[in-house]
C-alpha cells in the first residue's frame, strides 16, 4: 500500500477527506445513480443521462481538444 493511499484512508476514516480530493467518477456514481429522484410534473428537468454516454461524449470531446 502506498503512503498516499494509506494517508487517504486515514483521512477518510477520520471523516476529513477534503472534497477536492474526491474523484469525479466516484462522485458521478452517486450523483447520477443515487440521490432522491423526485418524479412528477413539478420537476422541470432532472439528470437522466447515462454515465456511459457521458464518458463516450466527454472523452471524444477531450480527445479532440487535445
Amino acid at each position: 500500500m502506498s503512503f498516499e493511499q494509506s494517508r487517504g484512508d486515514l483521512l477518510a476514516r477520520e471523516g476529513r477527506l477534503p472534497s477536492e480530493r474526491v474523484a469525479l467518477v466516484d462522485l458521478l456514481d452517486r450523483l447520477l445513480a443515487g440521490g432522491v429522484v423526485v418524479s412528477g410534473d413539478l420537476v422541470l428537468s432532472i439528470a437522466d443521462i447515462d454515465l456511459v454516454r457521458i464518458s463516450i461524449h466527454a472523452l471524444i470531446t477531450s480527445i479532440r481538444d487535445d
Partner: protein
Amino acid sequence: MTADAGTYLYAVAGDSGTPVPEGLTGVAGTPVRAVRASGLVAYVSTVSLDEFGEEPLSRSMEDLDWLDATARAHHHVVEAVAAESPAVPVRLVTVYSGDEQVLALLEERGDDFGEALSRVAGRREWGVKVYAEPDDQAAEPAEQGGGAATGPGAAYLKRRQAGLRSREEAWRRAAARAERVHDVLASIAVASRRHRAQDPQLSGRKEWMVLNGAYLVDDDRAEEFARAVDDLRAQGGELELTGPWAPYSFATLDEGVAP
C-alpha cells in the same frame, strides 16, 4: 436575458430552525437558500434556465468541465448541509420552475422524506472498490484480420485460446473475491448497494473493477467497517476505500422510482 429562472434543489433535511450556512454557494455560484415546510427544509438556489433548462442541460451534461464544476458544487452544498444534520441528497440537476413547487413537494411528500431521513440518520455512506489485475499475457489484444491458418498461425491460436481460458479463470476468481468482500462489508452495514463498474477510461485505471460497492454504516460501527476493509485488503488484491459520503446511494423515497 429574461426572468426565466428555476429553483435548483440540492437536499432535504429536518427543519431545526438553523440558518443556511453563511456564504454557502451552489451550482453556477448561486447563493443557497432554505425553503421550509412540514418540519422540513429544502436547500435550493435560483438558477437561470438558459443554463439549467432541459435543452441546454442535454448538451452541457456531456461537457466534462461543466459536469465536473456542477457536480462538485452540488456535492459541496450536500456536504455542508449533511455536516449540520441528517440530510437526504437529491439527484444532480433537479430543477423546479419555482419555490412554490418545492413547497408543494415538501407538503405532499413530507412523510416520505421523514422516513428517508430516519433511514440515514446517524449513518454515513462508504465506498469500496475492488480491482483485479488481468493476467498480463492474456490481456494482449487480439490481432485483427490475420492471414491464413498456417503453422505459426495455429500456434498463435492455441496460445490465444489458452490465454482466454486463463483470463476467464482470473475473472472468475476476481468475481468470487468481490462477492466475499461485498458479503463481509454488507454484514457490517445496514444497507448496501453495488454501483456499476466504472469505465476504465473514466477511472483512469486499466485493472478490472470487480466491485464498486456502497455501504450505509452506523457511525458507531465506522471503525469496525474500516478495520474490516483493512483485513480484506491484507488478504490480497486491491481495495480502495472512499468516504464518508452523504448517503447518496441510499436516498430513496419509498414509492419513488427505484434507481
